[in-house]
């Protein structure tokens, strides 16, 4: 219900209340900037998620299996794409799942609602933060791949894999958002790991799965992102459209479930 103040009365009471398109864009970008900055500064998030993927990749692809992989170009590329997908999953799932659950509990979302924060700025900022982290991870992974792991891919292919993975964080953001919307702060890391760890191993990112497990690997979005990353690397794989459609579906489904839940909570 409104009381319908005239424009003059609104001017008298509060002056300018309309946000220009430029100001709104500025609000979204500022939110994204500070969300990224605080996550980069957070010792339990920034340093771990930026360094862990490339360190584990170097351990596997160079230190432990470097000699064996050197003679197998296909396996070298597959290990690289698998670890890349693993690398970008973390910031997306934990950046959403854990932080939203905690911030919901601590009242930050309530404070944002009391302020005139643009409706989607908070979630868009987290999404852009996850994409920024993914981009940084992909740059370090590509450098490690070229200089240490001798991955035989030209620059355009590496850029292609990077682009797929940066955009590919979105379904994991949606899953993280869903977890963050349904569980409490203290339980969020546990629940996120409950999905993250099985998906990491059972989607066949790191090694070929036994037949029985390989058959069910497609239930995990990480499997489909890995297939798209392999396609971007030049692997002769069919079904890219199907993988893309499944990832879009996962994003839409979990995004919708999470937003419905958050709306109900509010």
């Amino acid at each position, binding site marked *: 219900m409104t009381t319908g*103040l005239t424009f003059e009365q609104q001017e008298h009471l*509060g002056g300018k209340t309309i*946000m220009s398109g430029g100001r709104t864009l500025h609000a979204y970008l500022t*939110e994204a900037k500070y969300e990224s900055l605080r996550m980069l*500064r957070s010792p339990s998030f920034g340093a771990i998620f930026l360094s862990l993927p490339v360190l584990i990749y170097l351990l596997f692809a160079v230190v432990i299996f470097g000699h064996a992989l050197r003679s197998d170009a296909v396996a070298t590329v597959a290990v690289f794409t698998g670890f890349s997908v693993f690398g970008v999953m973390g910031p997306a799932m934990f950046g959403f799942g854990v932080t939203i659950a905690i911030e919901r509990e601590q009242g930050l979302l309530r404070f944002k609602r*009391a*302020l005139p924060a643009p409706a989607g700025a908070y979630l868009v900022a987290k999404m852009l933060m996850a994409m920024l982290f993914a981009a940084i991870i992909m740059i370090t992974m590509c450098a490690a791949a070229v200089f240490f792991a001798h991955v035989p891919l030209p620059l355009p292919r590496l850029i292609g894999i990077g682009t797929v993975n940066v955009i590919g964080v979105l379904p994991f953001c949606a899953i993280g958002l869903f977890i963050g919307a349904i569980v409490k702060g203290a339980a969020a890391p546990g629940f996120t790991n409950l999905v993250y760890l099985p998906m990491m191993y059972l989607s066949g990112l790191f090694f070929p799965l036994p037949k029985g497990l390989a058959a069910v690997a497609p239930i995990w979005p990480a499997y489909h992102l890995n297939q798209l990353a392999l396609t971007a690397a030049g692997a002769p794989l069919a079904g890219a459209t199907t993988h893309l459609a499944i990832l879009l579906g996962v994003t839409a489904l979990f995004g919708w479930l999470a937003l419905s839940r958050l709306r109900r909570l509010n």
Partner: protein
Amino acid sequence: MNNSYLAELKGVHKRYGKVAALDGLDLQVAGGELLALLGPNGAGKTTAISIMLGLQRPDTGSAHLFGESPLLCASRRQAGVMMQEVYLSPELRVQEHIDLVASYYPNPMSAEEAMERTQTTSLAKRAYGKLSGGQKRQAQFAIAICGRPKLLFLDEPTVGLDVQARETMWAMLRQIVSDGSSILLTTHYLEEAEALADRVAVLAKGRLIASGTVNQIRAVVARKRITCRTTLPLQQIEAWPEVERVTQHQDHLQIVANEAEDVVRRLLAMDETLHDLEVHRAGLAEAFTELTKEAA
């Protein structure tokens, strides 16, 4: 409804299960006033503010902010908020927090200006998580004013501040009101309401039990307190009809009376040696105690 109200609750009922947090509350904030919302714990103060800000919806009744629904972002663009308990990212610096919140407003002040006005410039580069409780409140105040709000909601703003910081904030609040903005303030410090408020609204059990200027509220308690040094015996004064109660405090007598002038006249007439005479009217605290006792 008077369209000049910046915020208004009209017949608002709000229940949490079996508990009625607000029970038909009518409350308005007019332009250019500092309204202090007082009440004992659980009186419904924070619920009233939450509904005015659109954080909760009334079960029945209506809420307006700048004449529109508080759920509209555009209404809240004219309001600034300092909540009682709020979590802000500990990793961000004070200046960054202000910069972020300023980006939500169409015509904000710069973070530098907000810090200058609130005397928090020295905290600019400090991580929010490293601040003391009082410094956090000061930073939250800078955040609250950075959008140049026409109405400021301040929920217990001076809790945790030392005396000097509290007086600095009081001076800033007076300045904000004299610049034409309005403030809705909740506080447990009655001297804060006494020092700042143009108008006081007292809530108890979700209802408005009194509203008026500080003097009008104080006037609900007619009693005055007389202190003096006298040779008259306590029992004799106690027997006078205007006197409600007499107590001895070291070498002083403290007399609580309804008609203080009559008592003073008698004292002066009967004791030529009477000295150190003081007469105090009831303070806001006494009025508040009386009002909320009646409502209980």
